[in-house]
Structure formats: C-alpha cells, structure tokens
C-alpha cells in the first residue's frame, strides 16, 4: 500500500518536473504557471466545485474502463457509449416533461440504457461471432460519433442555433445545484461507492475479478465466464452512458457538437494511471479534472495555451506507469538485498 502511494506520488512529481522542463524550453515560467493552474482549480470554493463538476465524466468513464480492464473485456468504447448515453438523455429531456423527482431519474436511466445498448452491441458481436471487442469498440466509437453528429445536425437540430446542437432539454431534467455543488457530483460519488461494493464485496464482482486474472481458473471454478463478460460489458457501458447523461443534464442542458470529443480517451487514461483500482480512479479523475479546469484559467493570466494540459496529461500517464513498474523492480531488489544481508548475519 505504502509502495503504491509512494510510486504514485513519485510519478506525479517526475511528470510535473518533465512538464516544467517543457515549459522552460518554450520560455514560460513553470512555477507561475503551476501556481495559476492550482489557483484556478483548487483555490477556493468556486474553483473547487467547478473542478469536482468537471471530474464527473472523467471519473465515471475511468470507472468504466477500470472495471472492464480488471475483469478481462478490453472495452475501449467509452467515448461512443458516452455520446450514446448523452443522446438518449437528451432525447428523453426533449420529448418527456415530468416533475423533477421523476424526470431526473428517468433521464439518468435513459442515459444508462443508451450506454449499455452501445456496449451491449459490442458484447453481442463478441458472443455471437467471436469478434474481438478491442477493435469492435474502437470502430463503434467512430460510428457513434458520426451518428450523433447526424442526429444533432438533422432530425433533432435546434433551428434557431448557428451550429449543430439540439434545443435545450426540459428544465425539470436539469441537475440542480445543492449549495455551490452540482448534484451530478453526488451521483458520481454514489456510483463509485456502489461499484466499489459490487466489485470488491459482492460475488459477481469477485467472479469478474477472478475472470480478469485467470479466465481458465474462473471457468474451472464454476463461473459463467460468457455471462460475466456480457455483464461487465453492459455495466461498463452503463457507467460511460451515465457520464454522458450527466454531462448534458449538469452542463449545457443540450447536446452540443463535439460533446464527446473532450472526454474521448480521458477515462481510459485515468484507469491506466489508477492501475484499474476504483478508489485510485476517483483520485486520479479529480486530479486530471483539476489540471483541465486550471488550464483554462492559467491561459488567461500566463499566456500559456491551455492545450498544454493535454501534453501534461500524456506525460503524466507515461511517467506514472513507468515509475510504478520501475519502482516495483527497485523495491523488490532492495527487499532481496535486505533479506540477503539478514541471512548473512
């Protein structure tokens, strides 16, 4: 445990040093830049709640990827499942108007169903024909992207808008603010807790994890490997779909062009940084959200383009993972040396 925290922190520090070197080469002041980054993402109630709200899609897609990777299925379809969830929630909000107590759960369910539908399709292709979900989900991402782009440009387009987008959804479906905090953050936290219980404490989660570690062992032990595969695909698709629904309901309240592009690979990246741990996914998700949120403010006062956040993110992934794997080698070597010394005396 301490090892994991240590290598994680070390990785983040090294990544920031690499980021600082890049900034120095570009002629920016790293300290001032990082200061602005922190100030606009963590300094005070306003920035902090914005960061938390922005972390919702990141954490949920991260959770989706982490559970999938830890259970075996290589579900890389979070981007597609997210936009389908978002589209389902938007359509619900456009045509159904109920009191908020009913409307919000309904839209959330629609979002979940939309995401699960799209991941279920990939799962079905695997089950029925043995098509690798790895490539299928990637291709379905592209198809979902074009399909939603078509949906918001033709049948569901807002005629008054200048660029492709849907009209706003019914106001009863907007995620309310509880104090300064948007309610979507609560939904995210509940999802993390529920998924943690399912994954770590329930029998289903145990079977998923065992299948992920050794599918032959799981099958010989009596797990329904095929059924579990489908279940994991559906659950992880549902999580990504939920993320999409919450983006629409908490933010612009409509489906804007390019909605999914911002979160496309972030979830997968966060799951990788977190080594597929669920609690770690929450931590890294908020961390990445802080960088993205702070980057916009940073651009205002330091002239450093906010796109550097994307570069920083990629550096973070590489360095954190490399540090973790390299650190475990070093730790093992140190432990072996200690043992050898103890034996010698």
């Amino acid at each position, binding site marked *: 445990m301490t090892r994991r925290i240590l290598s994680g922190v070390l990785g983040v520090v090294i990544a920031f040093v690499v980021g600082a070197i890049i900034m120095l080469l*570009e002629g920016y002041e790293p300290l001032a830049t990082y200061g602005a980054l922190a100030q606009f993402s963590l300094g005070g109630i306003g920035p902090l709640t914005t960061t938390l709200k922005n972390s919702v899609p990141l954490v949920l897609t991260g959770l989706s990827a982490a559970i999938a990777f830890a259970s075996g299925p290589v579900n890389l379809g979070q981007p597609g499942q997210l936009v389908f969830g978002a589209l389902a929630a938007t359509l619900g909000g456009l045509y159904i108007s109920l009191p908020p107590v009913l409307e919000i759960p309904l839209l959330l369910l629609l979002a979940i169903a939309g995401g699960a539908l799209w991941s279920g399709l990939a799962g079905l*292709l695997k089950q029925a*024909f*043995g*098509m*690798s979900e790895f*490539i*299928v989900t*990637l*291709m*379905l*991402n*592209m*198809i979902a992207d*074009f*399909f939603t*782009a*078509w949906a918001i*440009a*033709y049948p569901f387009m807002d005629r008054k808008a200048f660029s492709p987008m849907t009209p706003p959804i019914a106001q009863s479906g907007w995620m309310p603010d509880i104090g300064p905090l948007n309610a979507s953050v609560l939904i995210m936290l509940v999802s993390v807790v529920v998924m943690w219980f399912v994954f770590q404490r329930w029998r289903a989660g145990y079977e998923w994890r065992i299948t992920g570690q050794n599918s032959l062992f799981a099958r010989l032990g009596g797990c329904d490997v095929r059924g579990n595969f489908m279940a994991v695909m559906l659950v992880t698709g549902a999580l990504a779909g939920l993320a999409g629904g919450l983006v629409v309901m908490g933010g612009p309240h409509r489906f804007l062009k390019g909605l999914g592009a911002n979160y496309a*690979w972030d979830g*997968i*990246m966060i799951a*990788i940084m977190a080594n597929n741990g669920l609690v770690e996914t929450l931590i890294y998700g908020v961390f990445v959200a802080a960088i993205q949120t702070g980057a916009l403010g940073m651009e205002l006062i330091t002239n450093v*383009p906010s*796109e*550097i*956040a*994307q*570069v920083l*993110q*990629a*550096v973070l*992934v*590489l360095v954190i*993972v*490399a540090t973790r*794997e*390299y650190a475990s*080698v070093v730790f093992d070597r140190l432990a072996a040396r200690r043992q050898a010394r103890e034996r010698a005396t």
Partner: protein
Amino acid sequence: MNIIVGLITGMIAGATPILLAALGGTLTFYAGIFNIAMEGMMLMAAFFAVLGSFLFHSWLVGLLFAVAGAMILALIFIFFSVTLNTDEFVTGIALNLFALGSTTYLLRQIFKVKGVFTSKLIDSIPNIHIPLIEKIPLLGPVVSGRNLIVYLAVIATIFCYYLVFKTRFGLRLRAAGYNSNSLDSSGVRTSRMQIQSLLLCAVFCGLAGAFLSLGYVTLFAENMTAGRGWISLAAIILVDGHPYGIALISLLFGFFDGLGLFLQSYGVSSQFTSMVPYIATLGALYVYARRNRERERKAL
C-alpha cells in the same frame, strides 16, 4: 467511364495511408510488439510534414520532417517499452494521446490557429505522370498521375515482403516475435530487433502521415488521422501481418472510403458516408472471426 476511374483513384488514395501505416505496424507485429501507436505516429508525421514544407517551401523537407516527427514517438516508445519495460498497450495509448495533445498545442503555438492550418506557402508532394502509359485509355489515368507516395507505397509493400521473408534481418525479426528466448540464446538481442522494427515503423508511418497532410490534402487539421491507425491495426490482425494481404485489405478499405465520397454526391448525408470504412472494418472482422471459428472446429 469517368465514374469508374474516379472510384478507383479514390480507392487508391484512401488505401495509401492505411497500407503504409499497416506495413510499418506489421514489422513490429512480427517482432512481437503490440504496437498501437501508428495512429499517433501518423498524426505527428502529418503535422511535421506541414511544418517542414511550410518553413522551407519544399515537400522533400516536409517528408524528412514527417519521418523525424514519427521517429520522436518511436524513440519515446523505445525508451518506455523496451528500456523501462512499461506495458506496450499503455505506452501506445499514452503516445497516441501525446501526439494528439502536442500537435494541437504546437498548432496553436507555432501557427497561432485552432483546428485547421493551411497556407499557400505549403509545398505539396507532386503527382507523377508516367509518359506513354499516360496515353493508354482507362489504365493510363489510373496508373499514371498518382501521388509520389502512392508509388512509394507499392514499392514499400514488395520491400516489406522481401525484408520479412527473404532476408536474414527478417528471419531474426520473426524469431524475436516467435520465440525471443531462442533468439537471445543464439546471440542476437531481441530488444535490438524490436528497436529496429519500431524505427522502421516510424519511417513508414512518417510517409503515411506526409501523404495525409501533403498529398491527400494540403493542410493540417486536429486529429486528422481520424482512426486510420486503428484501421491499419485491424488490417494487420485480419491477415496475420502478411504484406500482400495487408495491401489487399487496404485497397478494400480504400474502396469503401471512396464509395462513401461517391454516395455523398447522391445525397446521402456525409455523416453516414463517413461511417462506411468503419462498418467495413466490422464486416471484415466478422469474416475473419468466422474463418477462425471454422478452423478451430476442424482442428477439433
């Protein structure tokens, strides 16, 4: 007649970047590396091709820049995956993100634009007109007048086949993937073969990227590779890496790419026509999966 020629030339143009990237990827495939960084390498190459061509007003410099850009990613890949032993899949995904992030960043930083950069100063890669053959009806307009990179891709396919199956290097390359322990024990370092295959992959992806931004069109757009690297990965998997098989599959994808554009002129909305190559990939994957199942059944 013109429609057929148009479809075929569209097919060739669509196939070229996928073919080149897949040829690069197949070298790493034979070396036993799960390389998914073709997408990123192509994107980097596409950006640096425009940069080089814009700065020096020469497509040749653009081409060199493109290869250098892809090479940067290959070197990072080598550092993390071969030297530090980081997981190849993770490294590949991170590098694709790095390519997307850094090209977007550099686009803004160097050219001061967001989204798309184009300029009259960018020198595009020329089309080659072959005398005599040019005059033959039907065949002439298809074989002659294509972009230089298209001809390079044809040569590259034959070169790859020869390299992998007919040379000592190719034998060692395949041994690295087939049984790295026995290669190591025979005195050839597997890591060295893997490094060489990644560098070669960067050269091919460099050409593919340059074709995208200096041949197919003359501009750089954010994320302009649009999943072509992933399609090339699918192509490699579908034919188990054989260069000639890759050429065939690439042409098939190119055909569907061209078909999409063709349908657009018949009033099908562009969003649906853009889906065609990806749906075709799913179709090809279906055929592959079925063939595999039948083979397994026969083996039983």
